[in-house]
C-alpha cells in the first residue's frame, strides 16, 4: 500500500507526542521505526492503524485521506507488543477471527487458517489455547492473525520485545522472510537498533516526537544527518573540537558558518579508528600519538580506550592482533568523522591519508 503522512501531530494534553512528522512509504517496503522509548514511535503506528486520532495532519492510503476511518475499515493488520491474543479462543479461532467478518465460507476460512498455521510453523497446534503456547509461538499466532485477512498494511508494535534474545534473532529472520514472501507493506516499531538495521529495508529514526532521518540502514549509518541519529545508530565518540587530531586540524573550517565553528559537534565511530603499534597502522603519517588507558574484551573485539591530546576515544581492535595494555604508547589513525553544526552535517575523511593515497 502507498502511504503518505503529512504534518502529523499528536498531543496528549500538554505533551506533544508527535510533532510535524511527514513521510512517504512505497508499496511492499518493510520499514523500521527506530528510536528511544517514549519518542512517539508507537503513537505514529497507532495513528496509522486508526487506534489513535491525530491532533492534526493527514494520513493518506493510496492517495486517499483515511483520518476518519476506524481501524476496521483501513485494511490493516496489527501485531501488538503483548500479542493481545484472544485468550478464550484456540489458535485456529484466533487466526480465523478476522476472516469470519469477511463473510467467507467455512471452507475458505478453514483453508486460509490452515495455510497460515502451516506458514507460521505451528502445524498440529491448532487446538491449543494461548496460555499453552510459548512466547515465540504466541508471537507467531499474533502475526498469523494479523495476516490472515490479507491486509494491505501490516503494523507491528515492538514485535519481539517480550521474547528472549536467542528466539528473538530466529524470529527476526523468520519475520523478514515471511513478509517478503507475502509481499505486504509493513511498518514495525523497535528501540533496538540491531533489530532495525537487520530487518528493515528502510529505517526512520524518531526522537522526541520528530522524524530525524529516513533512509536505508546503511545510508542512515553512513550519512547521519543529525547528531542524534549519529549517536543513536551505532556507537560513537563525541568531541567538542578536532584540535590535536592528525588529519582533521582544519575540519571545522569546512563548515558554512566558520565563525560558529566552535559550537560544532564532532562524532567519530569506534570502527573508523585504527589503533596499534606504529608498524601495524596502515598509514602512520596520518596517525596521532595516543596513550592506552584501558582495554576491554567485548566478545568479538577489543575495545580500547585511548587518550589523544585532551580527548579520550573508544576504538575497536580485532582479537587477532597483539593485545594492548594500559600505558602502551600507540598510533591512532582516525579514518573519518562526522561534523554537525545546526542543520549542517559533513562527513570528512582524514586529509593527510587522502593526500598521501592521492600521491601514489
Amino acid at each position, binding site marked *: 500500500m502507498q502511504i503518505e503522512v503529512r504534518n502529523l501531530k499528536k498531543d496528549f494534553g500538554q505533551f506533544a507526542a508527535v510533532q510535524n512528522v511527514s513521510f512517504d512509504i512505497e508499496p511492499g517496503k518493510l520499514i523500521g521505526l527506530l528510536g528511544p522509548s517514549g519518542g512517539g514511535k508507537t503513537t505514529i503506528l497507532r495513528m496509522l492503524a486508526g487506534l489513535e486520532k491525530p491532533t492534526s495532519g493527514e494520513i493518506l492510503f493510496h492517495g486517499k485521506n483515511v483520518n476518519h476511518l476506524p481501524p476496521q475499515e483501513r485494511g490493516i493488520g496489527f501485531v501488538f507488543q503483548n500479542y493481545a491474543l484472544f485468550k478464550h479462543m484456540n489458535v485456529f479461532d484466533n487466526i480465523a477471527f478476522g476472516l469470519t467478518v469477511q463473510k467467507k465460507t467455512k471452507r475458505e476460512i478453514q483453508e486460509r487458517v490452515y495455510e497460515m498455521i502451516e506458514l507460521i510453523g505451528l502445524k498440529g497446534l491448532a487446538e491449543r489455547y494461548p496460555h499453552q503456547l510459548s512466547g515465540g509461538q504466541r508471537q507467531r499466532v499474533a502475526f498469523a492473525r*494479523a495476516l490472515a485477512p490479507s491486509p494491505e498494511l501490516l503494523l507491528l508494535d515492538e514485535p519481539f520485545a517480550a521474547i528472549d534474545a536467542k528466539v528473538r534473532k530466529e524470529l527476526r529472520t523468520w519475520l523478514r522472510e515471511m513478509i517478503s514472501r507475502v509481499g505486504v507493506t509493513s511498518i514495525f516499531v523497535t528501540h533496538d537498533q540491531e533489530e532495525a538495521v537487520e530487518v528493515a529495508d528502510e529505517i526512520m529514526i524518531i526522537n522526541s516526537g520528530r522524524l530525524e532521518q529516513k533512509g536505508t540502514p546503511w545510508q542512515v549509518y553512513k550519512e547521519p544527518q543529525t547528531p542524534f541519529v549519529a549517536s543513536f545508530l551505532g556507537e560513537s565518540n563525541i568531541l567538542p573540537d578536532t584540535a590535536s587530531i592528525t588529519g582533521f586540524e582544519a575540519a571545522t573550517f569546512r563548515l558554512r558558518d566558520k565563525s560558529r565553528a566552535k559550537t560544532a559537534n564532532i562524532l567519530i565511530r569506534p570502527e573508523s579508528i585504527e589503533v596499534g603499534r606504529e608498524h601495524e597502522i596502515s598509514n602512520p603519517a596520518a596517525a596521532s600519538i595516543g596513550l592506552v588507558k584501558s582495554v576491554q574484551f567485548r566478545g568479538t573485539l577489543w575495545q580500547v580506550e585511548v587518550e589523544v591530546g585532551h580527548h579520550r576515544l573508544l576504538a575497536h581492535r580485532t582479537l587477532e592482533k597483539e593485545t594492548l595494555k594500559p600505558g602502551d604508547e600507540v598510533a591512532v589513525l582516525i579514518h573519518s568523522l562526522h561534523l554537525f553544526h545546526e542543520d549542517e552535517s559533513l562527513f570528512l575523511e582524514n586529509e593527510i591519508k587522502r593526500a598521501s593515497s592521492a600521491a601514489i
Partner: protein
Amino acid sequence: MDDRTQRILDIVVNSFLPLLKAGVEFTVPLALISFALGLVVALLAALARLSGNRVLSGIARFYVWIIRGTPLLVQLFIIFYGLPSIGLTLGAFPSAVIGFTLSVGAYGSEIIRAAIQSIARGQWEAAYSVGMTYSQALRRIVIPQATRVAVPPLANSFISLIKDTSLAAAITMTELFRVAQQITATTYEPLVLYSEAAVIYLIFSTVLSWVQGWLENRFSRHVAK
C-alpha cells in the same frame, strides 16, 4: 414418643410439600425470571455507562442511584400499592418481577461494568484491527472474557435474590415465606415453620452455589491459573 414431639413431626411432614410447592411454583420462577430480565437491564445499563455518551450514561447513573439508594421493600410497595392510585394496577407476580428486575439490573450493572473494564484495552484493539465492529468485538471477544470475571459476583446477586423474594410475601404473593406464615397462623408453631422455610431457602441457594462452581469452571477452562 410424647404427644408434643409427635405433633411437631406431623406439622413438619405435612407442611413440607406445601412449602416446597410454593417455593417451586413461585419463589424459583420469580427469581429466575427477575434475574434473567435483570441481567439484560444490567448489561444495557453497563453499556450505557461505558458508552461515553453523556445522556445515556447519565440515565444509567440516575437509575442505579435511585434503585441502590432506596429499600427494595419500599420499591415493591410503591409498585404494588402505590401505582394503582395513578391508574396502573398490577398483580402481585408482575409487580414482584418488576421490582426484582430493577434491583438486579442496578446492582448487576456495576458488576458487569467492572467486568468489562477488567478486559485489557488490547483485546478491543486487536478485535478492531482484524476488522470487527464495536458490537462484534463486544459479543465475541469482550463479553465471553468478562463473563468469567462476572460469574462469582453475579452468583452472589442471584443467591441474594432468592432470599429477597421472601419480601414478595408483603405484597400478597403466596410464595414460600407467605405459605410458611399462613401455616403458622393455623398451627401456632412459628419456630418450626420458619426454620423449615429457612431450610428450603438453604437448599435452593446450595444448588445455586453448585451451579456457580460449574459455571466458573466452564468459563475459566482456557485461562492459565
